[in-house]
């Protein structure tokens, strides 16, 4: 912490200035759910209707702010960090309250803002045992703040805080409202993620100390946690240290994605989580990992990323094939969808590991598409469980007969998930495979082309297990035990409201992928500028 005047000779030091104020639109959108959670806590437990209304109102206000953000966002300059602020927070370590969004974070922010109201609507009549909507919704609101914050934070410590805030509510959502094995699943989820984030934090701090210093607004020369400055500040880090630092982040983000071999928490967590928990997990939480790679690890340490890229690529493809094979062996519908997540996130990671514009665009599209489609599938699994009280595939059947609308919606979701052209899933999967044909300069082309071929085989397997699932669940005649079950009804009103936006987006993004690619493309270019692709 030397004073500025002592360092006049090093004129090329970066200067940081305070910009914007704390009270900006991103702050509002991030903390609205937290305010909602506090309001929920003040409402008596018995007044369930008020609790639901407040929860829904909060998510809708946040979503409304999201619309405002869309109107304010300058799409012509999607590569720049917009609408944010950069002000002091923890001055002793020069950790700052830096927020902002660009073309990479905007889609994920919008995805979160979309999913959360739907989740609340879906919960309207589906509060899982043991009830207690007050805590249920309050936790979801805290979770939402964590997720939104992670996507807008541009300071490593701020990001870490939001990243961890996500943990606790999810732990409780699984541990309290989950299935029979909920304790095991929630603890496993918690430990895996925390293990990853502990290493990630060490990596962040090593990055902090080894990178160059900046001049803070208060006139001190200090290291920085600023994600937007670190790509320039970290160029002086030795190659060996960079490899280790990247390794720490790799584990931290890799657990969250989850990448093979850190994925084992995911099937348990998904299977045991309540429906809305699974939806949030699949739609948003997993994206935090891939987002971390795209926003932090790769732009800041491009050279280390190149060294790690083959490892990431190979693990991604192992994840694709392994996930698919596991899917084929599942007897439980929810578990099958969970393993399909492992496979799908494998495609995303493969696209990321190519370190190309094309791959990053594909990865972002894949993240959004996976969020919509797998979210939808988990909603369907939850509703199936409500009706049949089981998710055992061999006991199900004839959904199209008993609940035709639901059957068709499931058909659409399954087709989207296996990557049918014209639906959103296609634009996540196909370009991801294609991107491996031509990886960034300096990467082993032969290796990546091999990976591409294996990944393509993965899509065939995906078609196999998804169609098999659909056939067993939707086709045929209902089994004797459910034939005249009055519980089995078609899509209810709340389900229609919750699902329609997802269905519409799956179709629209499938037909007009450009609306997303146009936003992501400029920002991706900036993230990869140091790779030289």
């Amino acid at each position, binding site marked *: 912490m030397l004073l500025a005047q002592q360092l006049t000779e090093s004129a090329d030091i970066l200067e940081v200035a305070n910009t914007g104020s704390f009270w900006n639109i991103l702050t509002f959108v991030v903390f609205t759910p937290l305010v909602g959670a506090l309001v929920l806590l003040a409402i008596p437990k018995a007044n369930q209707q008020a609790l639901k209304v407040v929860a829904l109102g909060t998510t809708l206000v946040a979503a409304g702010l999201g619309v405002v953000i869309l109107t304010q966002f300058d799409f012509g300059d999607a590569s720049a960090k917009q609408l944010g602020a950069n002000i002091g927070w923890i*001055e002793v*370590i020069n950790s700052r309250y830096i927020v902002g969004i660009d073309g990479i974070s905007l889609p994920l922010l919008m995805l979160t803002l979309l999913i959360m109201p739907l989740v609340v609507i879906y919960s309207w009549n589906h509060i899982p045992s043991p009830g207690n909507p007050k805590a249920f919704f309050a936790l979801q609101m805290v979770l939402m703040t964590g997720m939104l914050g992670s996507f807008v934070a541009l300071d490593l410590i701020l990001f870490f805080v939001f990243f961890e805030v996500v943990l606790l509510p999810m732990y409780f959502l699984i541990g309290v409202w989950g299935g029979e094995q909920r304790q095991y699943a929630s603890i496993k989820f918690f430990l895996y993620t925390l293990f990853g984030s502990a290493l990630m934090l060490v990596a962040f701090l090593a990055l902090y100390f080894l990178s160059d210093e900046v001049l803070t607004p208060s006139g001190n020369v200090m290291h920085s946690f600023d994600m937007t400055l670190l790509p320039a500040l970290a160029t002086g880090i030795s190659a060996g240290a960079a490899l280790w630092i990247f390794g720490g982040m790799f584990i931290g983000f890799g657990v969250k994605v989850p990448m093979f071999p850190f994925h084992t928490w995911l099937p348990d967590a998904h299977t045991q989580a309540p429906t809305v928990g699974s939806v949030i997990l699949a739609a948003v939480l997993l994206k935090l990992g891939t987002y971390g790679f795209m926003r932090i690890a790769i732009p800041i340490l491009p050279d280390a990323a190149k060294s790690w890229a083959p490892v990431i690529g190979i693990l991604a493809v192992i994840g694709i094939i392994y996930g698919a094979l596991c899917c084929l062996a599942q007897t439980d519908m929810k578990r099958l969808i969970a393993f399909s997540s492992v496979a799908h996130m494998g495609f995303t990671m493969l696209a990321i590991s190519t370190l190309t514009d094309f791959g990053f665009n594909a990865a972002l599209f894949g993240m959004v598409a996976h969020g919509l489609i797998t979210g939808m599938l988990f909603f369907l699994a939850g509703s199936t469980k409500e009706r049949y009280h089981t998710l055992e595939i061999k006991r199900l059947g004839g959904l199209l007969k008993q609940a035709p609308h639901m059957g068709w919606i499931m058909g659409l979701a399954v087709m989207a998930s296996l990557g049918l052209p014209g639906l959103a899933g296609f634009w996540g999967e196909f370009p991801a495979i294609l991107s491996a044909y031509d990886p960034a300069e300096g990467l082993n082309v032969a290796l990546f082309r091999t990976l591409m071929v294996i990944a393509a085989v993965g899509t065939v397997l995906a078609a196999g297990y998804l169609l098999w699932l659909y056939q067993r669940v939707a086709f045929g005649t209902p089994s004797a035990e459910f034939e005249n079950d009055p519980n089995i009804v078609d899509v209810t009103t709340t389900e229609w409201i919750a699902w329609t936006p997802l269905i519409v987006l799956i179709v629209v993004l499938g037909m007009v992928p450009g609306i997303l690619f146009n936003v992501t493309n400029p920002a991706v270019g900036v993230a990869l500028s140091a790779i030289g692709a």
Partner: protein
Amino acid sequence: MNILAAVGVDNPPLDWHALAPELVLVGLLAVLLLVDAFGGERSRWAMPSLTGIGLLAALIPVATLAYDGVVRSMFDGAYVVDNYALLFKALFLIAGYVVVLLSTNYIAEGDYWEGEYYQLLVASLLGMTVMASARDLISVFLALELLSIPAYMLAAWRKRDLGSEEAGMKYYLMGVFASAILLYGMSLLYGMTGSTLLVDIAGAIEGTEVPALVALAVVLVVVGFAFKVSAVPFHTWAPDTYQGAPTPVTAFLAVGSKAAGFVALMTVVLIAFPTQPRIFEPLIWALAAVTMIVGNLIALRQTNLVRMLAYSGVAQAGYILAPLAVAGVSGASAAMAVEAVSTYLVIYAAMNLGAFAVVIAVARKTGSAEIDSYGGLFSYSPVLAVCMSVFLFSLAGIPPLAGWYGKLTIFLALIEPGTLAGYILAVIVGLASVIALFYYARVAKVMFVDPAPDGDTTPIRVPMSLAAALTITVAVTLVVGVLPQVLARVTGAETFLSIGG
């Protein structure tokens, strides 16, 4: 030479302002004693209020001294009042105030000597405030004994309870054993250097002709303090003592006594041994690593919450020791270690006192500290369950609860010097935190998921004083977690630990 004559210099000028916090405590002690002696049974109710008011009154001179901002040094530098000392004086006084809040109903409703309880508490706190300023072997030792001896008695305060008597006895025996070791180390230091002043010792042992003796002295001193802070393998007294002692006393030991031990260790190591990093660094490194790992692993298997908190406290001691293991690399690393240790101690005090406050509140209903007895707490006393979760997850270091910032400062201090030892220890801290989370989360799970074991779901009535203690601790845990700058401004001040003399 006449030793008595040698220490007698012309009446040393006394800085009454600098001594004011301690003088207030001495006055409080006298008032409590007289009220207890002459007030009879009627005065019992006044004891906790008097003590609380007295402790808050002692905070006033601490505040004026901090506002004044001058480093005051007395007795040739043996007693220094600087920001470092003031921070810890304030910490001890506030922690003591919270302990009084925790004790009020517990002591009044049990079969206890009430007057003496508060007198001993104040005496022990007096020792702690002296410790914060001690910069000399004699004042360090004096403060250590002044804070320990009342604590030995307090640990055995549950009369006719074998567990409590065992607690007091174990604590006493291990305590005096540690004192003896410490004293032996100190005597070697004095023998070699001819001075008890920490600064003089630092100069005298640099380049000494008998490095083996210096090593022996440093090791003995560090080990002596390792008992006090319950570092593995010198932790064996802690679980039995914590479990057997009255719970407010346990809270006091786990927070106040331990913090005082760390203050002493940090002061002595950083002022007297800065030239000997190759002796104290590997020693503290090993102590910290073993303490974190063993403490957490044993905590995993506990079924009693107080015992679990005891082992978790052992593990936390490992985290707090860690920065000192790299403190000798440079001046900057020493400064960061001081910052990390003091930050963590403040945060640790808030979250641990809070956890014990919940334990006391719940025991009022269930009469038990077994983890199973916390089943269903969320359903019948949601506020307590949420408070407990806040403290437990803060102990685990989950943002945005204060614990995360404590962990962060420790990571920062470990990584800053850029040594391999620091990196490895940082990774161990990370992994140990993950293990720790497991048992903290298990308690949370029991509170939120499991049913009440006896089916009794009448809400717990929390007395006013306990509610106040919970409010203070929750507020600190949340505020520091969200706005760490509040604390960082105090602990990060320049020339934080002045050497004095």
